[in-house]
């Protein structure tokens, strides 16, 4: 693959935890992620995979090394700039849905776009409905998010991650809290997004079956990439 196709690139990322005592979590990570790739990060607990994911997502910028997303060097940028960058280019799906319980499913999907403020509220509402439709839960749009089932909630969370048409979706064990039926739905959704829409997805997972079906697996051990 050519370099122009590289969406995310890291160089020599080193990360320490200082609490309770200084401990090196990441020991020089170099990875490249291509556009439209469905990538999974696996490894045992404490291997540093989640830590790496949060570095890649720009939420944790306390590390040594270089992080480039979409050709833009992000190390050393201000927190406000990074918040804006995340809002525009990165979507998140966590193990728990983290929906705002007071809002409806539709509003939960809309909020990141309202914050970004690129489109009018009407356009955003329409886009949000499209995303919910894509995930097959358009009929739940008006329900309070706290009244949906676990699987539905996770799908609303995915719709929320998609609302700003991000370059990259990050998943932190997106199926970790779901039964096999819902896990399959989430996986199929991700599959469809990457294959049909060219979406790039990076997920951390414990689920080997899930990982096996992704495009590429990066396995980590003791802060290093082993395969």
């Amino acid at each position: 693959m050519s370099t122009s196709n590289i969406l995310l690139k890291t160089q020599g990322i080193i990360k320490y935890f200082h609490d309770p005592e200084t401990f090196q979590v990441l020991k020089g990570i170099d990875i490249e992620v291509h556009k439209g790739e469905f990538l999974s990060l696996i490894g045992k607990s404490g291997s540093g995979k989640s830590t790496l994911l949060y570095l890649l997502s720009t939420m944790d910028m306390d590390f040594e090394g270089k992080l480039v997303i979409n050709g833009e060097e992000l190390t050393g940028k201000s927190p406000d700039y990074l918040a804006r960058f995340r809002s525009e280019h990165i979507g998140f799906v966590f193990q728990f849905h983290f929906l705002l319980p007071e809002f409806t499913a539709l509003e939960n999907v809309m909020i990141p776009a309202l914050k970004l403020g690129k489109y009018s509220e009407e356009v955003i509402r329409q886009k949000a409905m499209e995303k919910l439709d894509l995930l097959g839960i358009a009929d739940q749009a008006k329900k309070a998010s706290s009244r949906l089932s676990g699987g539905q909630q996770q799908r609303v969370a995915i719709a929320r991650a998609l609302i700003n048409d991000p370059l990259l979706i990050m998943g932190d064990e997106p199926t970790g809290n779901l039964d096999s039926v819902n896990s399959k739905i989430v996986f199929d959704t991700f599959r469809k997004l990457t294959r049909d829409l060219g979406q790039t997805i990076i997920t951390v997972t414990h689920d080997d079956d899930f990982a096996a079906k992704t495009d590429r697996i990066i396995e980590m051990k003791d802060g290093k990439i082993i395969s």
Partner: protein
Amino acid sequence: MNVILKIAKTHLLSKPKQTLVAMLGVTFGIGMFIMMISLMTGLNNFTEDLTKIASADIRIYKDVTEPRATLLDRIRPESLNWVHHVKPKNESDKIRNARQIADLLRQDPEVIGVAPRLTSQVFYNFGPVKLNGSVAGVDILEEDKLFDLHSKIKAGSLAALKTTSNGLIIGSGLAKKLSAQVGDLLMVTTPQGVIYTMKVVGIFQLGLGEIDNVRSYANLSTVQKLLGKDASYITDLNLKITNYREAKAKAQTIQAAYGNKAEDWETANATLLAGAIIRDIMTYSVSITLLIVAGFGIYNILNMTIYSKMKDIAILKATGFAAKDVTGIFLTQSLIIGLIGSLMGLVVGFVFSLLLAQVPFDGGELLSLDSLPISFDTKYYIIGIVFGVLTTALAGWMPSRKAGKIDPIEIIRGI
């Protein structure tokens, strides 16, 4: 709608009881403030009005008891002199060139009016009984400019005094004691023993017993005649100035310029006005205490809200809300609580002030007052709302800032 405002609103509406309690804290604080300040200011204004009835902005007189240089000091200024128990000189308390001073003062743009006055102790003869009192010899039209006398006239008229050389306008209390009416003749005895027949041409009521019961007004020339003095004999010059709040400074410049003692109304009534300062201190300290309590309430409630919304804050930050946006969400909530709470407080304060104004209050013989004096100055309503919003902003600031600083990773991974 702005997304921050929308989230803030949803948070407030999702826990209406808690929001209402927080608002009521502010309402109570501001309501009490308005109520107390209205009453206290009403009382202060009332005492101030009373003193304004009794004394002019500035009074110029000759202070014969002023300490003076002794003869020894004048002859031997270089030596250390000690003269025991210096007594005042026997000198007249007349202001020299009073009319010229009055004319000069009238040219001062800050001076609205100058009224000369000569007061004499008298006895009012009521059959065999002699009532103690005083007669103020005045130029009644000048006096009216200073003390607004025409509105205090209960019977007769001011103008009648001008045309009646032995005319007398007596206080209402005095008229009652003497059972005198307009047109009656009255015998007046001076301390020198001169008996003079005067004609009552008017009755006034200032609303202050200590004046209404003893004082009467006569023409200046009549009182000069009563005392056997010449036409230049004037003991007091009363001044009204454009801004009575600056009387103190003005009095000092006048005293320096003319050499006579000039006393401002605040100094003359220091004991009465001391109460005003104490009332102000009380009002503000009680109100601030109440607001601090309300502030702590808001601080607590916001802290609890933020604690229960940790996950929401984490996800908002993950999806692109900056620290200042999150701070904004919670600060907006406390400002909404503060604003609505304060507005309700203003209404509550206003209603209670209206009720207080109905409370009957008997001022007795001394004061003409039938209900509590309440001030409805808009200034205090503005202070109230500014106070309320500031307190809540301050109380909301710390928890909101803390919310903005929450590290989303800790929350997301900590589960």
